[in-house]
């Protein structure tokens, strides 16, 4: 299958990639761009491990084709914070011990940051429903929810 040339912005940088027409955005990120922070847990849109934002909208990268990203702005976990300056969501995940194995963590952080951009003052229930598309098998969600609520509180100032 011939490849297509796709231009997009990934974490603020212009990126050109060649991807097959049937390749998902997830595979483009991981295999063509080496951005392996976005994880695959299911490839069917059921686990949220592949959460990224596309023009500010939260999507499962496994449900979108790479070619559909033409001209779009993609944000992945790699674009959120650096070790010196972590995003409050990342910091509170660490402080609350909201990760055990950590495979779900990038997806949760991308999704939670997106929630707080839209709703800076969510209730516990709103956080739970927003994150219902992200599976975590290790934590029972308790510490994840607390981390997000604390990050929200800090970000509201």
């Amino acid at each position, binding site marked *: *299958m011939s490849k297509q040339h796709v231009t997009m912005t990934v974490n603020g940088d212009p990126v050109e990639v060649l991807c*097959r027409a*049937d390749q998902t955005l997830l595979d483009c990120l*991981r295999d063509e761009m*080496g*951005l*392996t*922070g*976005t*994880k*695959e*847990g*299911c*490839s*069917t849109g*059921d*686990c949220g*491990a592949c959460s990224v934002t596309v023009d500010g909208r939260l999507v499962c990268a496994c449900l979108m084709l790479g070619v559909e990203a033409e001209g779009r702005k993609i944000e992945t*976990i*790699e674009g*959120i*914070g*650096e*070790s010196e300056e*972590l995003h409050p969501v*990342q910091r509170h*995940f*660490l*402080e*609350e*011990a909201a*990760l*055990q*194995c*950590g*495979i*779900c*963590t*990038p997806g949760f*952080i991308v999704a939670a940051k997106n929630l707080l951009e839209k709703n800076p003052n969510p209730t*516990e*229930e709103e*956080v*739970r*429903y927003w*994150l*219902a598309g*992200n*599976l*975590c*098998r*290790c*934590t*029972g*969600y*308790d*510490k*994840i*929810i*607390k981390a997000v609520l604390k990050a929200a509180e800090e970000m509201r100032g």
Partner: protein
Amino acid sequence: MTLQNGNGHNGNGHNGSGTSNGYKYVGTRPVRPDGVDKVTGRANFGADISLNGMIYGSVVRSPHAHAKIKKINFDKALKLKGVKAVISGKDFPTLKPSDKLPGVAPLSFYDMSRNVIARDKVLYDGHAIAAVAATTQAIADKAAKLIDVEYKILKPVMTAADAMKEKAPLLHDDLFTEGVDPTPKKASNIAKRTELKLGDPEVAMQSADFIVEGDYSTETVHQGYIEPHACAANFAQDGSVSIWASSQGAFMIRAYTARLCGMSTSKIKVIPAEIGGGFGGKTTIYLEPLALMLAKKSGRPVKMTMSRTEVMRATGPTSGGTAHVKIGAKKDGTLVAGTLELKYEAGAFPGSPVALGCMTGFAPYDLKDVACLGWDVVVNRPKAAAYRAPGAPVAAYAVESAMDELAHKLGIDPLTLRRKNSAKEGTKAVYGVEFDRIGNEDCLQAAQKTKHYNTPLGENQGRGVASGFWFNIGGTSSAEVMINEDGTVIVATGSPDIGGSRASMALMAAEVLGVDVSRIKPLVADTESVPYSDLTGGSRVTFATGKAVIDAAEDAIKDMKRRAAKVWKVDFDQVDWENGSAICIENDEIKPMSVADIAQIAGKTGGAISGKANINVTKGAGPGFGTHICDVEVDPETGRVTVLRYTAIQDVGTAIHPSYVEGQLQGGAAQGIGWALNEEYVYSKEGNLLNTGFLDYRVPVASDLPMIDTVLVEVPNAGHPFGVRGVGETPIVPPLGAVANAVSNAIGKRMTSLPMSPAKILQKIDAG
């Protein structure tokens, strides 16, 4: 005993602010050392590996539950451009039934090799038959579809009850029931019979004023780790192999792969990737031997990753099973006898955890007359793998349901009934062990005092409690503590970190050395950089590997004291170790030397400084007991269950990093809630798995659960320098019973079958 209430006890106590237990670092909650990499997407998990010249593998899996393989034709696949190698069972050595390791959970390499790739027969939907490697994943997947397999389809047998029938189709014609005397001459699907007994329960039962008796059933469930199995293998020109894989044990992968591929251990190096959840399911191998053979044949590094569907069809699950339980008691609630019969589905090869079910079911209770009978039965489902406290949850579900029923009959509070009969120091368990000081009763007592237990319930609401037990183990561990030139410290172990164990290794090393925990870097080394360690499982790592780290740190201290003695020109026994420094005992004029001071002059005093420990801990792993409380509301119109409140109380020994201990309790509870309410393997009549994804194999999501409160009861384990007890497995033992009791109490009828789907609950309500 001390109590830590998980609520309102959050993320501080950082950097040696000290704890109530008298330790400086143990019991604090620093940010985990591997944390930043994991919140920024930098950590490399199994599927994140990429090698130069790498090609991709794909597995051909059986669409039939039970069939003979007549012929495999690779012609079409080999013609596809980009295909570099194909393999089938013929490419692997043929092992013998005698190729096994004995033990409570025996390990048969003969079975493992036929599970990894079928030989003449496929035994479940999804059983691997062949594999192909090609230049892209897409080509490999396409080639896999072009491999023609001719089958002779056989009748499948899907449940233990059916498989135990006289005329049932046989999975293996060389399987003869173990544990019956004399060994039968006729092959059977019953792999093993296990019987454990104390006293004479039949006679004792006659003295009971009340007897409760019931049948309970559960379905196959999966560990459900979010990271699918993945690995990469490279075959070097000199015949040595490197395998990158996420697993619960790099040495386990090395040993099993060597056995299955007929290679020497020294030829295989395993480099552990971060592991995205295992819960027991990654204590065995699936892809590694296939990747190795494909790499050998193609001469290229080969990467293999399972899809979620493959994970569900061909890995993991734990046994579904049935239980018949009978408990007798006096009017005052004193238990007089208990019996339990378990039938567990092992999957395609023997080895369900039924013996462990027999050993654990009655363990929370002081029973002098008790018997447990277990049947290990093969069926056409994937071979069961370990899942968190293997075997215990189903046995506990039956016993704890019966205890709830008994409490109702007697009109006694269910926790009081449990306290009255709780196993304690000196109680002999049915498997022969006499308990040391355990926290069983402490947990029950703490449970009664929780705010949760004293919160009134509303209409259609119910409360359930249940206890649970897990042995916890020790085993072989090794550790090396290396002092860097600047006085920072590296702690290397061979135990994969499946839930924050690096943090507890660092804390224990910090406590012993007296070095700030932020200056300690714990790492999980590959199989050629540390000596052998057993896999991460059995709740053994913080206990046994922790002990190795403590010993290694003490060894390093000895080395540093020697250096100080040399510099000070005093005898070794004149040097002591205090607060991270060597001090001279008799002469306080001599300024103490810190780790950094000693590190700086290491070259002049004999070279690099390190300590090591290789140990096998055979005793002292303190058993774990826990009690859970669950409140639910059942919608009488729809049968839908909402979990309102949940509290997990557990004796955790000393909590090294309390946040990660709480996390174990919360995660185990959530898995147990899923097991109780939603999760099950659903098969078609033909034996095909129908729910192979997270859409219809529904694990709990955030909106299904409330906050999960924890109470850490700390009864230090005398068998460990810091009092550590394993904590990871006990938390999945009580939830099945706790949730079932809550639902039963909400609807006023006993639920006896898991999962408690809305349909099942409605049926029960409507049954009048």
